């Protein structure tokens, strides 16, 4: 009888040890934490040239209702190699990812970027409209 109690005790302890440290942190396919936040917007936008200096003539206008980013760039900006930078609300992420230079030269078909909220349920697609300063 005593032997059985010892055995049961050992099994219990092992089971507890095996499950005790497992906490559930959900992550998405990029290894980023999925949270409960539902906010989904762009808070700021920056555009750098090939020399890593800004090409904006003034602050970009982000419209979170119309889902547009309007930015005017200097005359003589090389639109083929620009480096966009999005500031997003906490826990949100951007799709497609920006990995380096982006070609914005096709002004007729503006680039689109999708913001995905912290809970990964809300998606909003922003259109980046670029206008070049004219003399």
């Amino acid at each position, binding site marked *: 009888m005593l032997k059985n109690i010892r055995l049961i005790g050992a099994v219990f302890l092992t089971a507890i040890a095996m499950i005790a440290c497992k906490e559930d942190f959900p992550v998405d396919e990029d290894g980023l934490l999925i949270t409960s936040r539902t906010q989904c917007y762009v808070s700021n936008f920056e555009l750098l*040239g*090939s020399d890593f200096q800004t090409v904006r003539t003034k602050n970009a206008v982000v419209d979170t209702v119309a889902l547009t980013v309007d930015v005017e760039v200097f005359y*003589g900006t090389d639109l083929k190699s620009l480096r966009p930078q999005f500031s997003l609300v906490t826990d949100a992420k951007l799709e497609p990812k920006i990995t380096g230079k982006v070609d914005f030269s096709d002004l007729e078909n503006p680039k689109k970027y999708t913001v995905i909220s912290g809970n990964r349920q809300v998606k909003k697609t922003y259109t980046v409209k670029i206008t070049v300063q004219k*003399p």
Partner: protein
Amino acid sequence: MKHSYLFGLIMMLSVTFVMTACDDDDGLTVTPKNELQNDVIKRTLGPNMVGLNIEFAYAMAIPKSLGKLVSAQVEASIGGAEGTYLDNKSYYTNGSGQDVGIEVGSASVTSGAKTTVTFTKDTIAATLRYFYRIPNAARGQEVTFKFSANASNGQTVTYSMGPYKIAQMDMVLDLDVKDSTAAYISIADMAVYGSADAAAKADKIDLVYLYRSIPNITFNHALVAPSNKEYLPGVKLPAGVNRSAKINKVWALRDQQLARLQFGVFIDDPDFQQLSITDAPDFAINMRAEAGAWVETADGKYRAYIYMNSINNTTKSAKISIKRYTLK
């Protein structure tokens, strides 16, 4: 029985203590060598460019009891260009931080690749500076140096330095460009031409410098390939000047040899070899002072870095310096 073990143990411990106790060599005390000695440091940094100096400081000394210094010489594996010399002064730094030279020998004599200073003063220790003017013959090759000193007791010491790689690049400093009068830049010649000369050398003109002050936009100082008419407002190109080029604007790349500022940044051969600007445009406007641009000529023969040393909006001019690499 018990006591004999104890006795043995004590004996062994004592022997161990005796063997380790007196070892007081702290590794800090140096026994001076009683002979002629020498040492060399290289003083210049950055890529070794043809036409510039490589500077060394060559130190030698002999104990007074053994004699004095007779001569010092340096032999380069490739003879230096005119202007190569071994300084006949030994320097010390005074309280204000100035290097003060004291003449210790006759002016150096160069024969072939060997430069010699013969001591004229009674000298037992000296540090002589060696300036090797890199000759065109050494371009792309490696140079080694053999420093040696002779003493009056017949002793000779030598010290080898190198090999040092000599860069392929060319460099030209402080070219004056001016809107319309000296505006045509040739990477092949590393020179700036006026419109009459540019017409004669039309196949060598890669860039046009211009300054424009246009309302509502920032144009200012620009480097534009002759092929791009949109960014050459009001420029009447000389006949035949129509080449293209790739131009990639860079900010805050202040190569020390071009800028001669406090920044320890150097552009070397590998930077040109690895440069990839195939998607770059053929113009760069709003060039500011201390900015620069990578350039690749249309025929793919040259890659260059053009640095803006200074700009002047009033006189519509700028001072530029160029490093150029010839592609094989």
